[in-house]
C-alpha cells in the first residue's frame, strides 16, 4: 500500500516526553475588551479566539471583565472551591479503600463550576456534567447527601440506582447526570425554550467536556439554541483531555471550541477556566444577555484535568506525569487565594485554618453518611424498591417481578425469618 495521507492528531507530549502547552493561546490578563451584552454575535467573534482573563500574574484583578466582587464573596468562592477539592480527595481515598465503587475528581477545574454557579441565580436551571460537583456545593446541597449518593445507601437520592457521582437536586434546580455524554446539552436548550414560552426570566446552563462536543447532541443544542434564541448558556469545559484522547481528537487542533459558536450565530467566548474572576464575569455576561432575550452563549472554559479521568484510569499511560505542573494557567484555588492575600483579605494562616475546618467538615460528613450504610455494610435500601419509578404507576409485569424477587429473597433468608420484614415493605410501592 502507498503511504497513508490521513492526518492523525498528536498530543504535544506522551509519557516520557516534555510537556508542551505552546498550543494554548493565552491573552494577557485584562487585554480582552468586554462588549455590551446586547452586541450582536457577529461583532464579537474575537472573543472566541482570545482568552478572557482578569487575574494577572501578580494576583491583581485587572481589565474590563473584572466583576468587582466583594471580598466576602471571594472568600465564599475560595471556601467552595477548597471544599470541592477536599471532598474530591476524600472520596477518591474512600474509593481506594473499597468503600465506594467509583469516583471522578474535578481537581484543577474547581473554578468552573463554583464561579458559574455563583454567577447564576438560584432559579436558573443547571444541567451538570460529572465533573461539575462544585455546582452542588455552591447551591448548598449537603456533602452528606452527595456522599450518600456515592455510597448508594439508605439516604441515596438515587435510591441505589446510579453509580457514584450521578447526582441531581430538584430543590437546588440542578438536573440529573445520566452517564451518557452530552445528552443534557440539548435538554437544557429545551428547558430554556420552555422558560421563554412561559415568559419566565430564568435561564438554563449546561456543561460538557471538550471531548463530548463531538457528540451529536452538541449540534442539536447549538442548532435549537440558535434557531429559537433560547436563553441558555452552553459551556464546553476544555480540560485538554478526554480519557486518553487529547483535545485535538475533538477538533481542537485548528480552532478553539468557543469558535464553534459564531458558525451558528451564537457568541463564543473563550475564558481562562482557572481564573475565578474571569469565569464569573463571562458567565454573568452571558446570563445577562440571555435574560434580556439576547439568546444563547457558548463558553469555552480552558482548564486542565489535573487528576486521572476516574478511579478506573491511569493517566501515566498516556500523558507525561508532570503535565499538570507545566499547565500555564495554574491552579484556580491557588490563584484566587493569592488574589485575596494581595487584597489584604486573606492569609496563609487563614487558609490553613480553612483547610483544617473544611477537612474536619468532610470527615464529619463522611462519618454521618456511612451511618446510613455503604454499598456493602450497614443499613441498606430494600432491593424491592428497584421496581419503583420505572413508571409513575407500577404496571402489572413489574408488580409480578417484584413479588418474584420478594419470594426469592425470602427463600434466601430462610422463609421463616424474612417473612415479616418483607410483608412490611409490601405496602410501599
Amino acid at each position, binding site marked *: 500500500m502507498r503511504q497513508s495521507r490521513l492526518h492523525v492528531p498528536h498530543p504535544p507530549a506522551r509519557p516520557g516526553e516534555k510537556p508542551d502547552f505552546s498550543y494554548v493561546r493565552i491573552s494577557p490578563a485584562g487585554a480582552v475588551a468586554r462588549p455590551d451584552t446586547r452586541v450582536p454575535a457577529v461583532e464579537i467573534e474575537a472573543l472566541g479566539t482570545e482568552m478572557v482573563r482578569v487575574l494577572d500574574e501578580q494576583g491583581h484583578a485587572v481589565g474590563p471583565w473584572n466583576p468587582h466582587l466583594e471580598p466576602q464573596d471571594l472568600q465564599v468562592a475560595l471556601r467552595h472551591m477548597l471544599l470541592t477539592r477536599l471532598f474530591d480527595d476524600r472520596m477518591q481515598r474512600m474509593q481506594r479503600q473499597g468503600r465506594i465503587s467509583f469516583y471522578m475528581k474535578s481537581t484543577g477545574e474547581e473554578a468552573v463550576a463554583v464561579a458559574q454557579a455563583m454567577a447564576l441565580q438560584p432559579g436558573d*436551571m443547571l444541567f451538570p456534567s460529572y465533573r461539575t460537583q462544585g455546582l452542588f456545593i455552591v447551591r448548598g446541597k449537603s456533602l452528606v447527601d452527595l456522599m450518600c449518593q456515592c455510597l448508594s445507601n439508605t439516604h441515596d*437520592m*438515587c*435510591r441505589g*440506582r*446510579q453509580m457514584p457521582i*450521578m447526582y*441531581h*437536586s*430538584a430543590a437546588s434546580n440542578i*438536573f*440529573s447526570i*445520566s452517564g*451518557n455524554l452530552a*445528552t443534557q*446539552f*440539548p*435538554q*437544557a*436548550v*429545551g*428547558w*430554556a*425554550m*420552555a*422558560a421563554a*414560552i*412561559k415568559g419566565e426570566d430564568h435561564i*438554563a446552563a449546561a456543561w460538557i467536556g471538550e471531548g463530548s462536543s463531538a457528540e*451529536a*447532541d452538541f*449540534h*442539536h*443544542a447549538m*442548532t*435549537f439554541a440558535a*434557531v429559537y434564541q433560547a436563553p441558555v448558556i452552553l459551556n464546553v469545559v476544555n480540560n485538554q483531555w478526554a480519557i486518553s484522547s487529547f483535545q485535538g481528537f475533538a477538533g481542537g487542533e485548528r480552532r478553539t471550541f468557543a469558535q464553534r459558536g459564531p458558525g451558528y450565530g451564537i457568541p463564543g467566548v473563550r475564558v481562562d477556566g482557572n481564573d475565578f474572576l474571569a469565569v464569573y464575569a463571562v458567565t454573568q455576561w452571558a446570563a445577562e444577555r440571555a435574560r434580556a432575550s439576547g439568546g444563547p452563549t457558548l463558553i469555552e472554559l480552558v482548564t486542565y484535568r489535573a487528576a486521572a479521568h476516574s478511579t478506573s484510569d491511569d493517566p501515566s499511560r498516556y500523558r507525561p506525569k508532570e503535565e499538570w505542573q507545566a499547565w500555564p494557567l495554574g491552579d484556580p484555588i491557588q490563584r484566587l487565594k493569592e488574589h485575596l492575600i494581595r487584597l489584604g483579605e486573606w492569609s496563609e494562616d487563614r487558609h490553613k485554618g480553612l483547610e483544617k475546618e473544611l477537612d474536619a467538615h468532610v470527615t464529619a460528613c463522611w462519618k454521618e453518611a456511612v451511618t446510613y450504610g455503604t454499598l456493602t455494610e450497614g443499613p441498606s435500601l430494600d432491593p424491592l424498591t428497584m421496581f*419503583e*419509578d*420505572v*413508571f*409513575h*404507576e407500577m*404496571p*402489572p*409485569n413489574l408488580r409480578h417481578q417484584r413479588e418474584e424477587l420478594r419470594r426469592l429473597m425470602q427463600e434466601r433468608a430462610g422463609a421463616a425469618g424474612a417473612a415479616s420484614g418483607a410483608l412490611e415493605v409490601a405496602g410501599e410501592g
Partner: protein
Amino acid sequence: MARMNMVQAINSGLDVMLGRDQRVVVFGEDVGYFGGVFRCTDGLQRKHGEHRVLDTPISEGGIVAAAIGMGVNGLRPVAEIQFADYIYPAFDQIVSELARLRYRTAGEFSAPVTIRTPCGGGIRGGQTHSQSPEGVFTHVCGIKVVMPSNPYDAKGLLISCIEDEDPVVFFEPKRLYNGPFDGDPHKPAVPWSTHPKGEVPDGHYTVPIGKAEIVRAGSEVTVLTYGTMVHVAEAAVKLAQADAEIIDVRSMVPLDTDTLCTSVCKTGRCVIVHEATRFSGFGAELSATVQEECFWHLEAPIARVTGWDTPYPHAFEWDYFPGPQRIVAAIQSVMEAR
C-alpha cells in the same frame, strides 16, 4: 359527536388538549404553519399560536431532547417524528434519557413527553416510509408504547398519553389515516365515516393506556393484533369463517396480559399478527407471554403472521404485507392442528 377520519381525530385530540391545558406544546418538522405532512396538526398553529404549535429544525434527536427539557420545565410536549422510519436519530435521547429519567432520579425529575409518529406500510413508501419499529421500543424500560387502530381510539388514547405522567411513543398506522383497510389494495378505499369507530366525540374523553380491546368475540381461536392489521385480521376471519376472537392489543407497554391470556386460555389457539418483521418483533413477546400463561390450555402451536425478515420492499408491497391470505392460512393451520 362527529364523523372523523384518523387524521381529524388526532387533530381534534391535540386541539382539545391545547385548549384545556396551557402546558401542552406541539412541535415537529413541518408541524406548525403547514400543519404536518399528513395534516394532523392542520390549523392548530393558527388557532393556538406559533409559540405552542411550532416548526422545528430537521433533527429528530434535537426534537426529543428539547421535548425532554420542556417536560422537565413543566410543559407537556407533544413531538411529532415525521415518519417512524426517522425516529432512530432520536433513539439515544428516547432510550437513555426520556425512558430513564424518572428512574435514575428516583422520581425527582420526569418528562411527560408524547412522541407521535406515523408507522407502517401499504402506501408505496418503500423501505424508509413503511417501517413498524414498535417492537424495539417495547424492550426499553420506562417508556409506554401504544398504537390505535381507529379514529375513536386514536383521539382517546392520544389524550391519555398527553395526560399521562410517563413518556409514551404513540404510533399512528398511516395506512388507516383515511379509512379502515382490509388488506386488499385493489378494492375501492373505504372511508372512516362508514365505520362505527369513525364516530368521535368533539370534546375531551380518554381511552385508557394498558387496556386491550376485544374487537370481535369468538370461541375457537384468538387473534392478537394491533394497528392496521386489526382490520386485515377482521377481513381474514370472515374469509376463514372461523369463530375467532380478535383482540386489538392497542397498548404494547403496559400490556394487558389479562385480556389477552384470558382469551387464549378460553380458545386454546392463538394467531399473532403484525406488520413488522418477524424475528424478535413484538409478536415474539406476545407469543412468549401467551405460552407462559396459557401453556396448559394450548391445543396448537401459537402462530405468527408478520412482515418477512427483510426491509420493506417498494415493488413487492403486497407480497410483503401480511395480508388476509396469510392470516387465513395461519388460522386454518392452528385450527386444524391435532
